[in-house]
Each structure stands twice: as C-alpha cells, then as structure tokens.
C-alpha cells in the first residue's frame, strides 16, 4: 500500500466528507479558534460542560482533509468524556505524531489510528494536530 493510500483511507475521507458534530454552538462554555497561518487551515471548537464532563462538543473550520477529519474525530472521541480524559487523549494523540510513540487508544477511539500515517509526511503533521492544539488551549484556560 502506497503512502498516500495508507493516509487517505476510507475512514479519514469519510470524516472529511461527513464531519461529525459539525456546526457552531450557542452559549458554549468554552470556545477556541485555532489557525495554521502558513497554510490557512482553521478550526473553531465549542464545548459545553456539565461539571467536569464534556456534555456537548462541536466544531467548524475550513482546510484540508487531514485538518478537518482530525477535528471530526476529536469531537467524536470526546463527546461525553471528562476533561481529564480529554487531556490524556491529547497527550496520546500528539505523542503518536510528534514523538513517534506507539499509540494505545481504547477500542472506541480506533478511528484515530488512521492518523498515524500522517507522521510519514512531516509537512502535514501540523494539519493533524491543529484541532488538538486548539482543544489544549480551550481547556487550559
């Protein structure tokens, strides 16, 4: 399987074409915009919290398939999870792409594994991590 075949798998292209939790949210508790100025990819995250639990999450954005699919996967994985679970997942995801760590995602997060191919294309790592950096900023506030 060639590099672009392993990257542009069905699962990534499906998230790109049919993004989950897509749209702006009124009265969100957390709102954060993220941008990669050099390529112009944009992601905007909205979160509603119930105590420590992410009770609602959504995103809007524009950019390449990797940046937008990654945001879609992020919202899908974190819907209904806690902030501390989110922090762990950010660590796991960024570790996979930036530190070459073997990811150990729980089964319900398996879509994220399709992103591992991105690390073979260094120019695109910033696309894959945009939503995750944006979330990090949002919950760090």
């Amino acid at each position, binding site marked *: 399987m*060639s*590099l*672009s*075949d392993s*990257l*542009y798998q*069905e699962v990534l*292209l*499906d998230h*790109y*074409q049919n993004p989950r939790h897509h749209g702006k949210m009124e009265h969100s508790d957390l709102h954060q915009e993220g941008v990669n100025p*050099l*390529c*112009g*990819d944009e992601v905007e995250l909205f979160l509603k919290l119930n105590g420590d639990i992410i009770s609602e999450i959504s995103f809007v954005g*524009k*950019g*390449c*398939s*990797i940046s937008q699919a990654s945001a879609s996967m992020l919202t899908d994985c974190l819907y209904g999870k806690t902030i501390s679970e989110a922090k762990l997942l950010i660590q796991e995801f960024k570790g996979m792409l930036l530190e070459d760590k073997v990811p150990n995602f729980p089964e319900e997060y398996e879509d994220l594994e399709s992103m591992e191919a991105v690390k073979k*294309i260094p*120019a*695109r790592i910033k*696309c894959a991590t945009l939503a995750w950096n944006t979330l990090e900023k949002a919950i760090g506030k």
Partner: protein
Amino acid sequence: MSFDLEKIRRDFPILSTQMNGKPLVFLDSAASSQKPKSVIDTIRKYYEAENANIHRGVYYLSQKATEKYEMARIRTSRFIGAACAKVVIFTRNTTESINLVAQSWGRTNIHEGDEIVLTELEHHSNLVPWQMLAQEKQAVLKFIPLNQDSTLDLSNLDEIITERVKLVALAQMSNVTGTIHDLSAIIRRAREVGAKVLIDGAQGICHLPTNVQKEDFDFYAFSAHKMLGPTGVGILYAKEEILDTMPPWMGGGDMISKVWKDKSTYADLPARLEAGTPNISGVIGFGAALEYLESVGMQEIRNHELELLQYALDRLEDFGGLELYGTNDLNKRGGVISFNFPGVHPHDVGSILDEEGIAIRVGHHCAQPFMDFKGIAGTCRASFYLYNTKEDVDSLLVGLKKVKEIFGRVLKR
C-alpha cells in the same frame, strides 16, 4: 546560443535526482528556482579560494572579493538596463527591498491623507509594508480591482489614481495566476498626477526581458533566488535622483562617511543603503546566475515557457472538472498555472503529487486578498522555468489522475 533543453537540464544537478523513488518533477520555480552548476561552483570557489570581507581589507583576498562583488553589481545594472551600477542596492530579498522603500522613501514622503495604490493581486510582501506605513502615517490604501480572469480592471484608473496618490505599487507578474500586468497605462496615469511607481519584479525579471529605464520604473524590487541565484540576495533599483534623497534606513558599518560619538555622516550610494557585511558569496553567485541567463537569452526563455504554458493549459482543460484561474491570453500571462480540484483541498493534492515525485506549491501563495476575491482557501500552482519539459506536464497529469482516484472513492457518493 540556441535553446538546447537537454543541455540546460544537464546544467542543473538536482534535476537528475529522485524523490520518493521517482524522478523529480520540479514545478515550483515561482517559489524558488533551481540552481545551475555554474552558480553552485562559483559559490564553492569563493569559500574555498577567495573568501574575505569586502570594502575594507588592503590585502589581496579582500580586494579580489570586493572586485567580484562590485562586478556582480555592474552585471545586475546591465541586466535590468539601469544607467549605472550605483543605483543597484543589494538587500536580502524582494521583501526587504520593498520594506527599504517603505521605511526610507515612504516615511519621508508619505503623509496623512496621502494615498497609496495597490492591486487586489499583490503578494503580501507588496501589501503588508504599505499597510504598516499607512497605519503609521494615516495614509490611505486603494486597490485597482480585478476582472474575473485575473487581469486588472483599468476602466476606472483615473478615479483611482488621483492627485492625492503618492505611490502606485504593483507586481510585474502575479505569482498566483501568472498575469502580466499592463504597466504602461498605469505608469502613464501615475506620471499625470506626479506619483511614483514601484514594480515588484520578483516574478517578472526571471521570465521577461525587462528594461527599467525604457519602462520608466521609479523603483524595481526583485530577488536572486527566483532567477537561478542563491537565496538571501535581493535587489532594489531606483532612479538615481530618488535614491539621492533617501535617508539611511539601517545604521552600522559600511554606510557611514565619518562617525563621531554623537553623530555621523553617511556614505554615498550605494553604500548608504547597505549597512553591515552583505551576503558576499550570494551576490557573487548571483553574478554567475545572470551570466547563465544571458547565455540562454531572456526572450528564448520566454518563448519556451509560452510553449509549455499552452501545452499545459490544453491538457488541463482536457482533463475535465478542474477549475483554472487566470487569463487565456498568453500575451498577458507567464508560465504559472493555478487550479483547483473541486472537492479536494490543495494541500491534499500537493501531498499525493509529492509521493509521485512532483513538486508543486499549494495554499494561498501569500496572496490572501486574491483568495478572498475568488472565495477559495487556496490553489494548486504549477510553475515553469527554462528547464521544464512537456514530459513534466505529462507527469503532472498522471499525478492528478491519482488524486482523482483516491478522492473519487468519497466524491462519488
């Protein structure tokens, strides 16, 4: 010398290398051109046998380096048709050349309420320095609008370039669409109102025979690295009577005449505008690049690019379904093709082509106002230079077919 494409290709070592196991197809010369062996060898020779700082040393090496550096200045002035060498100022790049004009000439001559005219197709380097100056001086930026085919809409030129305009600054050729602007009409109007004209020649000088005096440019800015030379060398040409009035914009070594503890007097041109040790090897290497371009001939390069452009446009039209930007009038266009694959982001196209060894540029190309005008996030851009072939175009089409296959899986649904 006749245009010998095979010989030219042999002169560029990188063109025979492989990318991802495939022969390199380099279609991004608008970002930075490849370098011929003669330029690489000249730089190597300088460091191996001629290295010394210039303008100061009384010993042989310094004299030799100075002589070569100043020879490159003379060659540059002849290449662009300037009256003499001292009107050629070396900077780091086109961006620095434009900033030099903004900081030195602009801060002296632009005042509150004055107007600066740009176009909607400018590179950020010929936009942001003027935004900064306009903010500082409370001056006004105005824009010549575009026609749908990316040529300039000059129908209201007299209303846009009024008596309040002090400067008209625009590119000779667009880095996004390859549009070659009709400068003569704009310069004529600028003269009527007494405005100065700055031409961003970053894309123009490498592709088009250019004569700054015949074309009556006040300022002309460009870079060595897009014309076979090394990175880190920019050029600013300006008419001597304008340069004479421009105050220094950076202080330091080389730009002074006499220095006391509390004040200094400044050197004559060109040293007054070149503070500090310059990119000596780069300027000397640039001299070799100009020699190479002259040996091939700028008109021959233009003719070759037009042939490639026509061939590529025809094939991309035949491919079907692509959105192409820019005029079809080849008299108004250089060897740059911007396009989009509907439903596929340019970055995804770029990554898939990269795997096939094909280098194109994707994104907004530092021209975001144009992307806003078109309502797009970016484009895929293939750009040609003297060493490109019709086979390169064919490879691009094969790569695009692969993009279609990969994204077709979801686009069909």
